[in-house]
């Protein structure tokens, strides 16, 4: 919890001791007054800001939650100090003050209750159930056993499995090399004119972007293969220009 060294007028703190800024604020308020009803909010704001300032000197990576609370408190203090007629919007400073005081009181109550609850006698520690149970003359029925958390975990697992599913190729939109060879050879056999390579892609492969991309890539690969074996000629006027194809001149 909060430790400070008044002699050095410097707080030595461990933020890890606090579950959030509200708890820190509560701890400061409890130091101010025993009765939370009588705490001074403006004083509390100053203490909190002073605290945060000193902590940030020691720790650069101050939790965002604490800084957000600091900015809220700075705002609240400015609202409290400003004359009332300067302000016209929704929540008045006194309401914000009351709300903060309520939250502090509520948190302090739940903390007390938590302590009291865990001080109560506990089953298996302070009081006991019957040590053993008889099982003579009883019908034994098999019953499936599972807790809600088992089901929730199973569901969460299925869902995360879906998110991290293995990479799979969608086979139906891949133009096969055999099909590309067939379509090029079909073209070559028909005529000897120079033709743009992408014009010999079969019609049913021009529907979607994915299909066109795959068909161009495969047709290009197939054309290189055919050029290598001497079945066709390829021509490109300059880099990045369209590729033309023509059957090899015979004779």
């Amino acid at each position, binding site marked *: 919890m909060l430790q400070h060294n008044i002699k050095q007028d410097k707080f030595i703190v461990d933020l890890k001791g606090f579950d959030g800024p509200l708890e820190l604020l509560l701890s400061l308020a409890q130091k101010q007054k025993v009765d939370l009803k009588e705490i001074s909010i403006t004083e509390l704001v100053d203490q909190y800001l002073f605290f945060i300032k000193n902590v940030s000197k020691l720790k650069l990576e101050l939790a965002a939650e604490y800084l957000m609370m600091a900015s809220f408190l700075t705002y609240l203090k400015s609202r409290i100090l400003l004359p009332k007629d300067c302000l016209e919007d929704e929540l008045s400073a006194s309401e914000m003050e009351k709300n903060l005081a309520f939250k502090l009181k*509520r948190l302090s109550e739940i903390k007390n209750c938590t302590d*009291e609850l865990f001080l*109560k006698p506990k089953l298996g520690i302070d*009081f*006991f159930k019957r040590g053993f*149970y*008889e099982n003579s003359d009883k019908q034994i029925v098999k019953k499936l056993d599972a807790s809600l958390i088992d089901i929730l975990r199973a569901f969460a697992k299925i869902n995360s499995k879906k998110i991290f599913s293995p990479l799979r190729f969608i086979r139906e939109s891949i133009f096969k090399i055999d099909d590309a060879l067939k379509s090029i050879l079909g073209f070559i056999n028909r005529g000897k004119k120079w033709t743009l390579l992408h014009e010999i892609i079969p019609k049913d492969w021009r529907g979607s972007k994915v299909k066109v991309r795959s068909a161009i890539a495969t047709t290009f690969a197939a054309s290189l293969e055919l050029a290598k074996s001497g079945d066709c000629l390829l021509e490109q006027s300059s880099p990045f220009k369209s590729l033309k194809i023509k059957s090899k001149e015979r004779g």
Partner: protein
Amino acid sequence: MNFINKNENKSFSGSQDDLPDIKKKFKLEDEKILEAIIFASKEPVNINDLKKSCPFIEDINASLKNLTNFYSNRAVNLVKIKNTYAFRTLPYYSNHITQTVEKKVKLSKAAKETLAVIAYHQPVTRTEIEDIRGVSLYKGLMDTLLDSKWVNIGQRRDTPGMPVTYITTNDFLDHFGLNTEKDLPNYKELKEAGF
């Protein structure tokens, strides 16, 4: 757990001619049947299960009350946990009993406080818990509490977004020796203060 009444013993349904003495004797029998069932049962027994297995008992609540009274000054008491009944030893005698305690997961400070918030404010949403504690719940905290079997999921809140709510269970009440949530320490005071 289910109980099936094997032979609905006719002798339990007394005729009008029965003497009061015999009636009284039969009442005692009712009590004792309940005593046997609850004593032998591993889990707290639901009152509806008792009714189902003992349809011949006219006033089951009265019988249970008699049984509770009978054990009230003993070291073993009949306790009511919501709508279930079980025998438990009195904490007063715990000093003499040393049992190998089942290892329970030790709850963190945050988990204990969250459990208390759920107990006092149920049904309560995640956002409400965070608002009361003034901090966002760390990942896995609700997971731990659900795992403890002390917390369960309640009805969704009928507000925009229909958020899930959390409630405490009978296991929770049983563990802390509470009859209902109203027996939580300072429960009344907290509700009266508007928390």
